[in-house]
């Protein structure tokens, strides 16, 4: 049991607890319809997102990874998203170098009140991943 074949692709989302997870909640409360592909992992802060989580996800089966945190200057932990922004930008620029389309990885800022923005982000990112199709980075080669 995993993504529904033919209908969904595998999208992993890392959302910070204070802003974006709340934004996704707000979108839910407002009944803003979204595609179902995204699977959300809650983290306290976007600064907790080690770029290697994104790499691991993309290498082991994810077709797309989304990271969302508080808007810059608005981090619950003051600086967490500032670090996140640098690390994730670095990763975004590294990915195409190893042959992974950088469009498969998106990072953005959504506050707890921005339900509508969240809906837009999820919808647009999911559409983008569907346009790109499944990612076949994974290739087992023993020996």
């Amino acid at each position, binding site marked *: 049991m*995993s993504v529904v074949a033919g209908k969904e692709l595998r999208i*992993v989302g890392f959302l910070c607890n*204070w802003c974006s997870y709340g934004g996704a909640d707000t979108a839910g409360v407002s009944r803003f319809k*979204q595609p179902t592909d995204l699977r959300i992992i809650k983290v*306290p*802060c976007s600064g907790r997102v080690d770029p290697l*989580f994104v790499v691991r996800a993309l290498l082991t089966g994810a077709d797309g990874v989304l990271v969302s945190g508080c808007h810059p200057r*608005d981090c619950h932990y003051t600086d*967490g998203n500032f670090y996140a922004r640098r690390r994730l930008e670095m990763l975004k620029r590294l990915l195409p170098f190893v042959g992974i389309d950088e469009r498969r990885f998106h990072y953005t800022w959504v506050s707890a009140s921005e339900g509508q923005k969240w809906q837009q982000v999820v919808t647009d990112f999911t559409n983008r991943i569907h346009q790109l199709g499944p990612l076949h980075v994974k290739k087992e080669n023993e020996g």
Partner: protein
Amino acid sequence: MRVGVFICHCGNNIAGTVDVARVAAEMRKLPGVVYATNYMYTCSEPGQEEIKQAIRKEGLDRIVVAACSPRMHENTFRKTIEKAGLNRYFLEMANIREHISWIGEDKELNTNKAIEAVKMAVAKVMNNKPLYSSSFKVNKRVLVIGGGVAGMQAALDCADGGLDVVLVEKSPSIGGMMSRLDKTFPTIDCSICILGPKMVDVVQHEKIKLYAYSEIDEIKGYVGNYQIKIRKKATYVDWSKCTGCGACMEKCPTRNAYDHFNFGVATTRAINIPFPQAIPKKAKIDPEFCRQFTKGKCGVCAKICPTGAINYEMKDEIVAEDVGAIIVATGYGLFDLDKFPEYGAGRYPDVITGIQYERILNASGPTSGHILRPSDQTEPKTVVFVSCAGSRDKSLGVPYCSNFCCMYIAKQAILTKDHIPDSQSYVFYMDIRSNGKGYDEFTRRAQEEYGAKYIRGRVAKIYPKGKKMVVRGADTLLGTQVEVEADLVVLATAVISAPGAAGMAEKLHISYDTFGFYVESHPKLRPVETNTSGVYLAGACQGPKDIPASVGQGSAAASKVLSLFSKDMLESDPAIAQVNINACVGCLKCVKTCPFQAIKEEVLRNGRKVAKVIETVCAGCGVCTSTCPCGAIQLQHFTDNQLLAEVNAICQS
């Protein structure tokens, strides 16, 4: 491991678009899950009871609740499982309502997504570890930053509640903006008459320690245990000797010192007491203007002072205070005239700001309450008020409403008529915002009883014409151009965040919005709390506010502190970073990136350097964990392995 899974229908909220029974059935197939069920309302009393029963009966050791957002009920269920004997961190929630049932239309897809979400939660909970909070002592003193009406109210309420209060005010007197006002709306009672006694209460309260003319240099620590460094700025007057007699001020030869209290409407002496009701009523030298400092000789005040309080050698002094909580009441700032080139950018003396007009109106102000226009000290007969001078103007970076200008313009129009009965006031406005108790009646009175003419429209330009100022604008209701020849123009300049607000927020580790106003924890339900525990907000530092709102918030913040201090010990959140000293290589990159200075270097007995987390300071952001290259510092409850378990549950299934 014996995981129990509880799927909530949430009435029809979840069950309507998710096949909850199927989710439960799928969970039963998972290794490690020994119990899975679905229930109408898991958060209800019987729903929680069922969880407790199952824990006991089935010997469950970890619980997954798939229901609404954990932001809603995580605490509820943590308490539930704790009551049944499990550690509260053996709970994971899968958000299948806000993130699934409410946003997806296809029941099949929703159900599949819910199954995966719960699988992720199961994968994570199997990696959870019991965490225990430790308790620490609270220092039951409170720091109030800002001695305006909000800060004073907070300080008095705390002090009356038995707390020791440290009140720090950066100007020489407490009282803030309210002490400058002439009358207050909508009652037209004298501002200083109602504020003065409060100021006296503050200075006389045995529980309040006042630092006037002082600023916050440094804030260290955490809720319950803050260490504050206060900079007592040099006044060059020994306040322990100064009696406030004012003799120095009378004899001071410098007469052109900028008068901060009067917003430059008049000048003052280089040594001055800001205003007659000042608390503390002490003199201070303004070295920028004092001849002793600028020319190196004078010494008049030193000679005249009967108590010998003058000390030209005085230096700033740093004092330390330890407190357990902080109330921030740093107030607001105002746009300068120079923001308005079309209104003369401060070049026309008879175009003034609302707060300057307050000083002109005020009986103890520079004109002793006679309305005299600055240029020629004559009585203005035509006064034009311009509202929204900057406010609600995106191009000036102030898209918001300054909240109380409409009201004080009405008040000032009324007072103008009171002072000069043959005067005529004009008010250019965008909208009249008067939604407080008795407010709308008040603005009507200004128009109906006092004859103020309200013109809806923006003022495009103000320029001098002889002794008059021509105010040119549009009347958008009539659709015509309007020109008023005024004797005096008062701009209701935009309320902005206090100067230095951002720097203060950074010292406090609280967040601020793009305009520099401090951000409350929740816009509705936690309006005085910040996201940093132990730091509370009062007054206009959080956003433009009038007096009653500021006072109310001051009291609210005080009550928050009082309830925080009702316990002797506080419990720390155990979901904080932890160092595995065996893996730590002592590179201390985590020390560099920790936003809270919560990590320090520790030298082990064998001489090895490692990182050490100061448990009470760590806020649990996890920046250190993603900084650490060797995985030695792990944010508990969000460890690499816990998050990887979730990633694997999605990607490797």
